[in-house]
């Protein structure tokens, strides 16, 4: 009993932390203490009560900027995972269920794609699409497809010949119905951890891309973009880099704890 409480501790802590951060980020869409892009002459001020995280080189309030920038990062990360998850699951489901030559071929391509380091693959796709917020989202989404496809394919393939699926098939259910209604719910337990890991990778990847100057463009802000800005002011305004860096870390940390908690829960239940 005692053990179970501790295991859920990670989940609880992760959920609370993530909820608080996401709430904070969502609030930032409606209210920020200052206009995050408004410049003022209070340049490069250290953290004060008026400016909790200080101000940047143009006198913009860093706290407000982090609120708004996290939103951009969050949206990109969520859309990225959504693209990867949906497309990956469809590919994985179909290939896993039907198997055969198409399955074999797709999995070889999958192998080839996973051979590319993720940022590298994203960069290559960007070189086709051109830089920018939306293109980065699409590029990262594509990058995440193979890993989701692989995970779901295994899950679907394992269920292919299970009794109730066979009987559903005999009862004349269409393959789409079988895939969606009968099989998909059973893959949730492999999908969810994949989603949490994917989300963290997506946050990191977006930050990396924007950091390299390929993601968002000002006056838009995102975590990675702010961090690259902050890097240039590390001596004059160390609080900038530190507050942005900590925010990214906390966001990933929260979701990571959820993943950890779920995994342990899983073990306990299974």
């Amino acid at each position, binding site marked *: 009993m005692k053990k179970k409480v501790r295991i859920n501790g990670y989940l609880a802590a992760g959920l609370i932390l993530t909820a608080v951060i996401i709430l904070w980020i969502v609030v930032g869409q409606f209210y920020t203490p200052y206009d995050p892009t408004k410049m003022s002459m209070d340049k490069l001020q250290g953290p004060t009560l008026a400016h909790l995280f200080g101000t940047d080189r143009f006198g913009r309030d860093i706290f407000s900027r982090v609120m708004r920038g996290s939103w951009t990062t969050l949206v990109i990360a969520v859309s990225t995972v959504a693209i990867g998850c949906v497309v990956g699951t469809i590919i994985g489901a179909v290939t896993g269920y039907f198997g055969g030559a198409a399955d074999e071929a797709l999995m070889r391509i999958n192998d080839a794609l996973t*051979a*590319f380091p993720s940022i*590298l693959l994203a960069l290559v796709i960007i070189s086709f699409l051109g830089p920018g917020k939306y293109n980065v989202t699409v590029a990262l989404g594509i990058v995440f497809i193979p890993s989701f496809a692989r995970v779901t394919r295994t899950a679907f393939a394992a269920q292919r010949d299970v009794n109730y699926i066979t009987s559903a098939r005999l009862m004349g259910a269409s393959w789409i119905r079988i895939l969606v209604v009968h099989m998909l719910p059973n893959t949730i337990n492999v999908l969810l951890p994949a989603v949490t890991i994917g989300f963290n990778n997506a946050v990191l990847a977006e930050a990396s891309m924007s950091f390299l100057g390929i993601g968002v463009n000002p006056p838009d802000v995102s975590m990675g973009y702010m961090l690259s800005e902050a890097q240039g002011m590390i*001596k004059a305004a160390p609080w900038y880099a530190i507050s942005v860096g900590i925010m990214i*870390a906390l966001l990933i940390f929260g979701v990571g704890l959820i993943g950890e908690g779920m995994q342990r829960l899983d073990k306990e239940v299974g």
Partner: protein
Amino acid sequence: MKYVLRRIVTLVLTMIMVSFLSFAAFHLISGDPAVVILGTSATPERLEALRRSMGLDQPFLIQYFRWLAGFFTGNLGISYSYQQPVAALIMPKLQVTFCMVMLSFAVIIICSFPIGLFSSRIAGSRLDWLHTTFNQLCMAVPAFFLSILVTYVFGIALKWFRPGAFPDLAKNPVGAMHYLFYAAVCIAIPRIAMCVRMMRSTIIGEMEKNYVRTAISRGNDRGRVLRRHVLKNSLVPTITLLGQTMAEIVSGGIVVEQVFGIPGMGRFLVLSISNKDYPVVQALVVILAFWVIMAGTVADLLNQTVDTRLRLGGR
């Protein structure tokens, strides 16, 4: 032996696949290289002549095999931006990146195993939650944020190394490796956390298995059982993970190099992509992908020697 052969065949097939995909992709988007080189105002005759001399009038597949042959003989084409052979341009940068990645890899290996063992030891103890939390935290800190901090603290404040003053690798290898070490550690830390987590969970899983319980309850020394059986068996997933880690190190390296001002291929790759210098991008992409594929293969082959079961199992 049969397995090794099959693995090598797969390796070659994947490499061909990867290079073909890249070649086809860049072939589609890069437009007419002759126009890029001569400019839009060039006469059709000159363009035609250049196309012929570059072999651009050949069928696509022939071009691909020519390129592949060139790739293995060190002829990677001419950079659009610098009008120099790509091989000469990227070689020094690749050497730097290679050293950094290998250094990082070494750090990961050296740190992961002791920490992983230690962490499986304390599993279930009071310190466990602290360890798990710390581990998650390490995974959560982006490598480039770490790099910014390390550059500032060790480079500018403590002056242990001189950011922006990367010593020539050939002239001063010790200095260069010292410099690379900081970057390597920044890349390594999140990866170490992952490996530790993996080791821990496999060791714990292994310890709960019947044969271990039986062995210990029969009075065998716990440490000896751990060393002789558990460790060996839990090595397999860890080595696989390490093999996959190579891709992530290369990824992380692209960004971290920028922060540290390391003249590796990361900075060059990003610039070349922006500048649409496709011959350079193509060469770098394929080289890096090969590198990663090879790491995966080596990991698999290593697992072979560690775990005899794999050899028998019909993978």
